Structure formats: structure tokens, C-alpha cells
């Protein structure tokens, strides 16, 4: 009995130690974020110390006030939200449609088209920046949300992930559905998509975080302060002659909050989405 007790205790202690270890490791991983957060509350003269100090002597909000007052951060966040939100939804739709064709149809040139799609992963957006700008300008989309979003509406990597997920479904599902008189479109919309929410969530989140963080393109296709995104807002705090770290760190933390919150909210979904067969060889 006592032996059992001691093994149980040992187990318990091991378990607690393990949890402490895991959380410590986690805090170590996010150390740079903690560092930024601490600095954002520091008075300017404390950031400048040799040796550096890490705990604010006096916790102040001045950096946050300055960050908010020198930019229209709220408007920027709204723009980023529209840009990232809508283009991510569209990206999920285009990826699902293409993946559906690739995994449930047999047609001439399927592999060739698939390879051509995958090839786009290797073409960096920066090479094609100027040409894409010309295209978008000719479409009259400068200074519009559509212009900002248009180059983010489809992604080969997302198509790939979605296809891998669809491939885990047996074709018999579709055949059974077809026999039941279910059209392909209905099968796609009413059976396949509802079954695919995990992977769709994953794609949505990763697309959202990706577009939320883009800088160059939204900057290029807008020339109106009211259309600017939040990443541009962060650079507006970059003073021309050297960085003023306090407000920049404060703005960084503010900008970080939405992505982190979304992330915390949906993290489980992301993991199950990836597990759902994103990479099953």
C-alpha cells in the first residue's frame, strides 16, 4: 500500500515538475515578446541603460499614448481587418474549389495543371510586384480595398493543404452521395465543406495572419492615409533618425494583440485542422 502510495506520489511530483518545465520552456520561447512588453512600459531614460535593465522602475503608459496619438491606429486596424478578413475567406473558397476539382475529378491535364499551380510557390511576389501593380492600376483598383486584396485571393500552398485533406476522404463518399441523387455541387457544399471545417479554419487563420502582416503591397496600391494598414502604422513610428524604442514597442504590442487573441481562440482548431490530414504524404 505504502509502496503504491510512494509511486503515486512520485508520479505526481514528476507530473508537476514536468508541467513547470514545459511552462518555463514556453516562457523562454516568448522571451522576446516579454522583453518588448516590458520595454513598452518603461520611461525613455530607463531603456537607455548600460547594463540594460528589464523591469520598469516605474510602469508608465506614456509610450502607448504616444503610439496612439501619432498615428490613427484604430483606422489602420480596421483596414487591416477588412483586408485580412475578406481575402482570407476568399482564399479558403478558391482553395476549396480547386482542391475539390483535383481530388474528386479525373480530367485531362489534371496533373499538369496541379504542377503548374504548385510551381507558383516558387515565384516570389517581389519579382512580379511592378507588373502586378500595372495590372491593378489598369483595372482602376488603386486606393480600393479590392486592389489591396486582389493579389492575396488565392494561394497554391492552401490548395495543396486542402487537397491533402480531401484525399483522406474515400471516393466512395462521393459515389454514395451521387447515387443518392446528390449533384456534385451539392456534395461539395453540403457534405464535403462541412466535414472540412478544421482544415478550412487552419487555412483561414494562417492566411489571416499572413495578410495582416503584409506591408509592401498595401503600401504600394494605396496613397491615402485612410486606406493604410496597421503594419504601415508601425513604421510611421519609426523616427527618421533612429528608432525611439518605447512607442515602437508599445505600438508593436498593440498590433500584436488581435493576432494573438485570434490565435489563442482558435489554436485547438488549427491543430486539429493540420491533423486532419494536411500532410499525410
Amino acid at each position, binding site marked *: 500500500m505504502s509502496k503504491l502510495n510512494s509511486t503515486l506520489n512520485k508520479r505526481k511530483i514528476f507530473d508537476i515538475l514536468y508541467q513547470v518545465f514545459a511552462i518555463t520552456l514556453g516562457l523562454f520561447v516568448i522571451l522576446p515578446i516579454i522583453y518588448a512588453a516590458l520595454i513598452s512600459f518603461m520611461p*525613455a531614460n530607463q531603456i537607455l541603460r548600460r547594463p540594460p535593465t528589464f523591469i520598469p522602475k516605474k510602469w508608465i503608459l506614456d509610450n*502607448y499614448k504616444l503610439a496612439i496619438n501619432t498615428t*490613427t*491606429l*484604430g483606422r489602420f*486596424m480596421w483596414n487591416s*481587418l477588412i483586408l485580412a478578413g475578406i481575402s482570407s475567406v476568399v482564399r479558403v473558397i478558391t482553395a476549396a474549389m480547386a482542391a475539390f476539382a483535383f481530388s474528386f475529378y479525373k480530367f485531362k491535364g489534371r496533373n499538369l495543371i496541379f504542377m503548374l499551380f504548385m510551381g507558383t510557390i516558387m515565384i516570389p511576389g517581389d519579382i512580379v510586384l511592378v507588373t502586378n501593380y500595372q495590372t491593378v492600376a489598369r483595372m482602376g483598383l488603386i486606393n480600393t480595398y479590392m486592389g489591396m486584396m486582389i493579389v492575396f485571393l488565392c494561394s497554391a500552398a492552401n490548395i495543396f493543404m486542402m487537397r491533402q485533406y480531401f484525399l483522406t476522404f474515400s471516393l466512395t463518399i462521393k459515389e454514395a452521395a451521387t447515387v443518392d441523387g446528390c449533384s456534385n455541387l451539392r456534395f461539395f457544399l453540403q457534405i464535403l465543406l462541412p466535414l472540412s471545417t478544421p482544415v478550412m479554419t487552419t487555412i483561414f487563420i494562417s492566411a489571416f495572419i499572413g495578410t495582416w502582416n503584409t506591408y509592401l503591397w498595401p503600401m504600394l496600391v494605396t496613397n491615402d492615409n485612410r486606406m493604410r494598414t496597421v503594419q*504601415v502604422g508601425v513604421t510611421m513610428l519609426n523616427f527618421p*533618425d*533612429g528608432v525611439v524604442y518605447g512607442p515602437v514597442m508599445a505600438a508593436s504590442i498593440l498590433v500584436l494583440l488581435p493576432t494573438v487573441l485570434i490565435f489563442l481562440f482558435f489554436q485547438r482548431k488549427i491543430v486539429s485542422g493540420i491533423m486532419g490530414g494536411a500532410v499525410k504524404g
Partner: protein
Amino acid sequence: MKKVLTIAMCLLMVASMGFAAGSKEIVETKPATLPIRTVEFWHTMSGVNATAIDKMAEQFNATIGKAQGIVVKSVFQGNDNSEKLKTLAQAGDTKNFPDVAQIVGAGIPAAMTYSQLVPVQDMYDKGGAFVTKADLEPNMIRSFTYAGKMIGMPVSCSAILLYYNKDMFKEVGLANPPTTIAEMADSIKKLMVVKGKDVERYGLNVAVRRYQLSNFIGGQGAFNFFGDNEGGRLAPMTKVTFGEDGTLRAFLTEWEKVIKTGGYKAWEDDINEEFALELFGMAIMSTARIGKITALVGDKFAWGVAPLPKVNAQDKGGIAVGGSCVVMFDPDKDSAQVDAAWQFVQYMASPEVQFQFHKDTGYIPVNKKVYTLPGVAEHLANNPAYKVAIDAIHNSHPNNQEPFDIINWEIDTIIKNHMLAFAQGKETLQQCHDGIVNECNQKLADYHKANK
């Protein structure tokens, strides 16, 4: 499901945006009467400078703008307008050109290739200007002039200076800041502190790049040009001339003395902060940093600025004007629109506005009439550092200018890479000299080959 996700997401976002709720509302200028003209103004300023330049536009709208029915919309365009204009021009996207754009001097050659450009000179030729060319500082006019034609209106001009820590100078027994590079090397030897193998305190911090080098080259003799065609100001620059006229070698020979001290920090990390932390006694930076240094140093120690040390004691050229001008465009072929923009451009260079802008940002006034305004003498007496900067410009030959080298980024990369290698002992003086001269000329030749 997706709907739920989206809604949840929106709620989350809105909640998180609560943090930014106190955020300043977008400046939306609503004219009382019918809006007659909207002038789009693209600037490159961020931080305090952005606030100052937005204030300029607001005040224009409230005064001249209100009277004449002009509304200026000022827009931040990242730190390089030239880049953005290039993209527009290449896409043939003329209708999205702004009416007025702030660009650095080096951007003028590129700006001149755009058919929409309206040189400031053309506006002056029409007559009736309320800020005349005679009011402006001649060095600054020349800064933005190509082939005798004034292209841009100077607005935010700066000068290169030597910043030094007065307390540290006193501590090591130095009375005055150095006036030549050789003297500067001597000062470094006194200022530097070595502990074991490591330099605990440097004498000088500056990375020599295109900006610094063009000042050291341009100041030699009465004045000196960086490249042919007066440094690209008469016709496109096709080669650098500082190799053949010996001015680069003269500079490098002096600079080697600085390097040999061992107390020269040849790269810049956070130069403002480190100066304030007394990690070195001297730094070479633009006037635009005076405000920043004042704030950072506070009353921790006494510091001052001095004219850039000369290469040779007898040099008279002084320094080149740095900073930016504004250029005008006529995207809609609408001369009334251009006239409206011209009102704003002149307003930016007018005495009262320049004085206010100077006080807000530390840029050197472009209008000579500023010095006749009430309160200016007092302001300069209280801020001796600005006085030094203004005098340095006034004592410089107008021909000492940053070059119009077209491929300024490439020239900058070549110079900074070789100067760092030289400072770190990876290149000899000869290798550094030949590297800079040959590579600059090669790149210029490549450019002209493609753009005949």
C-alpha cells in the same frame, strides 16, 4: 460554421481595437464652402516631423487655402517617395500622381524623367510669386537645381555636423573640437579608453557612406565636384572624378589616421542612444538629430556641435545641403490645379512657416527672411547648436553639393562596403580607393549603356 467564425473574429477584433479607441481621428478637412481644389501632397516624414508637416498643411488650409478655396491633403508615403513615383511612372499610371511630393535631392534625376513634372522654375517664370527666389538660401536653391533650372522647392534642409561631448573633452584636457580630420584623430587618441583587448570607450562613431564622403570630397579646396558635369548637375553624371583629381586619396590618407587610432567605431548601431550613453566622445550626424540628442542627453552632460572637420586645414568648401525638397506634378494637365499647388509650395517655404517648422523639427530654415522675424535671434541664442548648423551652411560654397549620381543607392552601397573594409583593416588604402572609383564608374557605365 464559417459565419460563426467570422462573427467571432469580428467581435474579437473590435474588442481588441478598444485599445486604440482613444486614437486620433483622421484629419478630414471639410471646407466651409464648396471644395474647389484638393491638392494632394505626399510626404515622407514620420514621428514628430510628420506632426509638423501635417500642421503646415492644416494651417495652410485654414488661411490661404480657405481664402482661395484650396484644400491640401497631406499623405504619408513611406520613407521613400521616389520609389513610389517610379512605380507609378513605370505602370504608366499618371492619374495617381500627386500634385506635390517631397523627395530627397538624389531623387531629382529620376523625377525629371517624368513628363508630369513641373519644375519650380517654370512657376517662377510665370511671375507673381510671393516667395521669391531671392528670399531663399542660394545653397539650397542649387541643391535642387539641374542644368540651371530650379526643379524643387527646398523645404526640409539639414547639414552634417560633428557632435561632441563637452564634458568628456574637458575630462581629457581638450579645449576645442577638432577642425581637421588629423586633429580629430588626435582627439580620438585622448578620448578613447581601452580595457584589456576591448575598447571601453571610442573616440568617434560614424559610418562613412555616400552622404559623408560627398561632404568630405565637396569641401576640399574652394569646392570640389564628386563626378563629371559638376557632379551630374549640368548633364547626367557619367563617371566619378574624385579618383582622378586626387581628392579621394587625400581624404583616405587623412582618414587612415583616424582608423589607426583604434578608437574609431566604423559602424553605427544606435548612434543617438550610444552618444547619450557616452560610449564615444564624438559622432558625425545630420542637424536633424539635434532635437533627439537634446531629449536623450537631458542634463546628464554638456555637449555641442561643431562644423564638420576638414580634410586639409586650408579647405574652404564647407558642407553640402542635405534633406529634401518638394516637387510639383501636373497629372491632369490642369494649370489651375498647378497654380493651387504652387500656392502651397510657396507657403511651405515662407518665413513664418519655415521658422515654425525649424522649431518643431530642427531643419534649417530655407528662407533668409526668417532671420528678420521677431524671436529668431532669441531662439538661436537659446539653441546654439542650430546657430552652428546655420553658420556652417552660410560659410559653405554653393557648389559643394551632394551629387546627382542617378544610381545613388548603388554608389552608397559601394562606398559603405569599401569604407568599412578599410576601417576594419580588410582593405588597404589603395584597394579601398580603387574599389570605390572603379566600381562606381562601372555601375555608371552600365546605367548609361542601358539608358542611351
